């Protein structure tokens, strides 16, 4: 088992994600430079959070053009689990590996706080070890997490069971106050049709240790590790 955490210019959760995978979960993990042409040999690819290219123009737009993205696409086609966290999610959207787009938060401010999300499906490698309806407490930290997509896309996401997490309150209810950014359908994370490419706004690497105030992020890692080991 070997994991890759991609480093784009401006990624800033790369070392945190590396820390969570390697030091907390004990997974051999490499920081992989954005100009790398191939991701052969990796069983898990993570696009970390941050501000690739300063978030200039549009979040994730320039990183989506990086050389490594061709390799990410190939890995995804091979069925390798790919996780985009926050900016990584935005990059996957811009690269067309996931459908839809991001707008600025409805409050038009950056939000760094703990939120709750409800697991909507177990069909992804990152949720298969949890239960549908389970509520996770995780931090967010973003200015643009307001997910949008047109009606056909939303219908397709729904029909194909591609919504992975929705914002909710601690009890799993979708209330207005529980959605921190105005995303359509309270969507916090989605996957591709095959289920192996997943993007989410909350940061599992920030809640993988007790000292940081929560450990629900470990559920994602444990789930994907079990899948890869199987």
């Amino acid at each position, binding site marked *: 088992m070997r994991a890759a955490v991609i480093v784009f210019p401006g990624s800033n959760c790369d070392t945190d994600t590396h820390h969570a995978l390697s030091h907390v979960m004990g997974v051999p993990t490499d920081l992989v430079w954005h100009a790398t042409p191939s991701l052969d040999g990796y069983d898990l690819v993570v696009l970390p959070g941050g501000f690739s290219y300063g978030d200039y123009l549009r979040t994730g737009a320039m990183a989506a053009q990086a050389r490594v993205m061709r390799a990410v696409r190939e890995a995804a086609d091979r069925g390798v689990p790919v996780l985009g966290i926050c900016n990584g999610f935005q990059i996957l959207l811009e690269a067309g590996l996931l459908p839809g787009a991001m*707008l600025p938060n409805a409050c038009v401010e950056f939000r760094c706080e703990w939120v709750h999300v409800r697991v909507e499906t177990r069909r992804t490698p990152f949720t298969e070890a949890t239960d549908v309806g389970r509520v996770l407490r995780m931090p967010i930290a973003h200015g643009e997490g307001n997910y949008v997509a047109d009606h056909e896309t939303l219908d397709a996401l729904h029909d194909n069971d591609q919504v992975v997490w929705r914002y909710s309150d601690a009890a799993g209810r979708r209330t207005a106050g529980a959605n921190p950014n105005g995303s359509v359908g309270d969507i916090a994370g989605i996957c591709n049709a095959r289920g192996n490419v997943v993007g989410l706004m909350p940061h599992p690497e920030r809640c993988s240790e007790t000292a940081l105030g929560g450990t629900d992020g470990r559920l994602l890692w444990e789930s994907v590790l079990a899948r890869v080991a199987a």
Partner: protein
Amino acid sequence: MSGLPQIYTAHVFVRLKPGVNDPQGATVADGLRDLGFDGIRDVRVGKIVDVELVAPDAATARDRLQSMCEQLLTNPVIEEYELELIEPQPLKLSDTAW
């Protein structure tokens, strides 16, 4: 046949597609109302990308700009754009920055 390369200036006006909601625009509208401006019906915020480029002729310049818009400058999922190409200034010998 194309002559000497010239400097083209282009304005790319990028706007959110009509149906896409615009949090920034809504906030600006609220801000204007808070300041006491009456009669604000709608505000939407877009982007201008001004590009200066050297190309052999206007057709080539326009082609390249169109590709730039499609490949990077706009996201067709949520945005639409207009491209305005300005008459070129001739390139002076001293302009060697490119």
